[in-house]
């Protein structure tokens, strides 16, 4: 099954048969071993060795997403942890899914990367086969099924949770979708966060968020929220001023997906750090709701 381009009639027939335009669906019959493993065998759940190995795999941590006036902003810190170790300081957890959507992940990093790669191909494959992009709901539903398919592996420790956000071209707004290990999607309104620091990030966003925020404000809110997450969660990394490592920030608007350059991202992080030098807990929200 390994060498796929072996020029046999089987290849040609498989490639030319009429079918639904899903890449994962095609692979599941053509070369199932190329898909992420659905189960990792009976050993994993029970044995101490397996539990130890899985615990020490790098895990990705906090992602935030905020709906803004023109679309949506997604940002992630740069830390990956293996147990109590920092396994990577400059990991990327926010990616382009396609021209109008972004995806971030928390959980076992290697499994997450594989999923994100597959999801990207899935979206592009549909678009090329059908000559039109999937609707935003279509993309969100497809991702839900792919996460659902990973449930057995998740229960054995290889769990990965995505956060999906995109620009809905029909409605002209940014939308955010969250998932659990058994799938989804759950549509989130206004903002959402996933990963180990998500409790803190979400609490922060609750205070920072206002409806129809300009994109620049939404980015700042994301960076502030990540700072708060890093402040209280050991697995979330704060801005690394010495190594110049700052959150990965992406925006999705009517103009499409765009990842901020390192310099732009550094600029936002610097603003937040400068503010925290004066007020370590960050901006305070008014105590009483304005009437």
């Amino acid at each position: 099954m390994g060498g796929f381009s072996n020029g046999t009639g089987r290849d040609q027939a498989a490639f030319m048969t009429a079918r639904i335009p899903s890449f994962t669906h095609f692979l599941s019959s053509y070369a199932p071993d190329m898909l992420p493993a659905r189960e990792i065998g009976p050993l994993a759940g029970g044995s101490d060795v397996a539990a130890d190995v899985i615990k020490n795999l790098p895990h990705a941590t906090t992602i935030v997403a905020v709906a803004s006036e023109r679309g949506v902003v997604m940002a992630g810190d740069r830390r990956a942890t293996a147990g109590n170790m920092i396994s990577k300081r400059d990991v990327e957890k926010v990616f382009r899914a396609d021209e109008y959507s972004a995806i971030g992940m928390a959980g076992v990093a290697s499994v997450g990367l594989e999923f994100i790669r597959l999801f990207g191909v899935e979206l592009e494959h549909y678009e090329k086969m059908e000559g039109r992009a999937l609707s935003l709901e279509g993309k969100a539903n497809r991702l839900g099924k792919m996460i659902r398919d990973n449930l057995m592996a998740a229960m054995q420790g290889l769990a990965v949770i995505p956060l999906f956000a995109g620009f809905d071209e029909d409605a002209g707004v940014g939308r955010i979708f969250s998932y659990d290990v058994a799938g989804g999607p759950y549509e989130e309104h206004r903002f959402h966060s996933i990963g180990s620091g998500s409790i803190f990030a979400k609490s922060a966003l609750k205070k920072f968020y206002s409806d129809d925020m300009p994109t620049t404000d939404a980015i700042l809110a994301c960076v502030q929220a990540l700072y708060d997450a890093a402040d209280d969660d050991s697995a979330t990394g704060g801005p690394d001023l010495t190594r110049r490592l700052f959150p990965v920030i992406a925006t999705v608007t009517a103009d499409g997906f765009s990842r901020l350059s390192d310099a732009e991202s550094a600029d936002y992080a610097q603003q937040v750090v400068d503010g925290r030098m004066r007020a370590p807990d960050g901006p305070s929200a008014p105590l009483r709701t304005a009437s």
Partner: protein
Amino acid sequence: MPFYVSPEQSMRDKADYARKGVARSRSSVVLQYSGGILMVTPNMSSVLHKISEIYDRIAFAAVGRYNEYEVLRKAGVTYADVTGYQFDRGDVTARGLANWYAQALGTNFSEPTGKPYEVEIVVAEVGAKPDGDQIYRISWDGSVSDEPGFVAFGGPADQVAAALKERFSDGMSLTEALGAALAALAASAAAGAAANGQPELTAANLEVAILDRARAHRTFRRLHGPRLEELITESRTAATAENAEAQATDEPSSASDEPPTGPSSAGDGSPKL
């Protein structure tokens, strides 16, 4: 009752059959320009495409029977997506895809039963630099050729290729390349199919796409609507100016007092737009 047909005869019949099918289609051209690769074909439909994206830097253009090349296009997309997913996106190449098509078409052609595909396809890849650009042409019988610079296929392809050869040069701008493509396609219409009353090539009945060297990720882009109209106008204006210039250099004495109006009376042999 079975009767004997020599393999030579059978192959010849199949080739004739396919060639006739493809010759009924209208010509398409694919050519290099400084910023990438340009693909142009007459197409009345704006949704049933003859030119499509295969992968980040690879495009597909076809002539012949729509249902047949559509199957091939989808197979190509699948080939590219599987290869890119299995290895890396950079490992999907036009050469690999052209060979895959060659094998698929060749196998089909040599099968004793069944009909040959009545298609001709072109696979083009845009490189990081112009010398990395590749254009392959694959015929109904699986024969492949590497076409440096430009290719014309379908319909009276030889005439179009000859017309294109006159105008093609390395490092043309997009406007110049489009002008050359339109002139070449118009040449075929003028030469072969005047009787059919084919309409003039305009933005409405052309399918135009590029592989844009400068773009990141997916380089394939369709040009349509106002953007295409603008480009066509520009290319025609440029062509007229060029003709006038050519005339001016040919006849320096008379050109100065006569503005270039209408087609050149000198008749430089090149078909007018």
